[in-house]
């Protein structure tokens, strides 16, 4: 079973990664992550919003209200300088973790 810290870490990495180039609203964030991970990572409303709010309160994301073309209120998230600063070491940590797990798996096969 994957610990909640690892799950949260991977979710934070996913959100920061999709917001690295552009600002997006909540549903679009969830959709992009699902598309880019080939469905391996799937967010629902209950898993996405507490995380977005937490990341916003930590200053990694900034949200602003805008409007949809239909005139509906919509909140857009963008990554902040603090978020970018967090993204680089987070990417490195995960890359190292996957390399380590890969080595472990190969050693087990040998």
């Amino acid at each position, binding site marked *: 079973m994957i610990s909640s810290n690892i799950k949260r870490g991977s979710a934070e990495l996913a959100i920061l990664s999709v917001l690295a180039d552009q600002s997006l609203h909540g*549903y*679009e964030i969830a959709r992009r992550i699902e598309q880019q991970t080939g469905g391996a990572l799937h967010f*629902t409303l209950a898993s996405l919003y507490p995380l977005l709010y*937490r990341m916003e*309160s930590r200053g990694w994301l900034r949200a602003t209200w805008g409007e949809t073309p239909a005139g509906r209120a919509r909140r857009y998230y963008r990554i902040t300088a603090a978020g970018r600063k967090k993204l680089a070491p987070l990417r490195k940590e995960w890359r190292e973790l996957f390399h380590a797990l890969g080595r472990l798996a190969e050693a087990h096969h040998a």
Partner: protein
Amino acid sequence: MRDWEREAQRRLENTNFPAAGRDEVARELADYLEEVSSDAQHRGLKESVSEDRAFTELHEDPHLGANLFRVCQEGNMNDRTKRLWLPGFCILLMTEAVLYSVQLGRFDYLLWLGQGHRWRIAINLPWLCALPVLGAVAAYWSRRNGAGRDVQVAAGLFPLLVFFGNFFGGPGVASLPVRLAFGQHSWGMHQLMVMYLPWILLGWVIIPLAALLLGVLSVLSQSNASLRPAPDA
């Protein structure tokens, strides 16, 4: 078509959200649910099935409202720390540090006002000159973290606590009744202190407070100027 904002508000009903905060969260969740529903319809699902899918997502986690409230509370506390406590305490410490370094370095040029009169006010001039800068730094720091005008003023005037500390601690005002009660203070001395108290208050509290306020107001006036629309050409 469902009113998703009402559904979301109903979902957040039993939480401790203040009305304004709940409306804002409900509006955001409604937009998400609207998208879930319309996306499912674009993929060929019937309207009723698409709406059911969004409805199920809204009710998937029974603790959704409590979780969102907890995270928002954390955010509010973080904001208060960043906007008030952190700049306020840092400037308070810096105010005290400047005062002590001025005194230790013997740069405390005391300006005596009212020389030769019954009243005399001692003002630590170098320290006084530093106060508008410190007040402005605290207000600016607070503003940079998104604080409103009242919090900027509160952060800028935080060193007021030190002033009162100096006032009560310096001339021994706080311990005066105790010393009088135990006979360690002559009545004449007490009368002398009472006579000078207003001037000590003026020199150590009122004038430094005005200096801090000057710095805070300079930041507030800048923020007003940036808010003012540019005049028409």
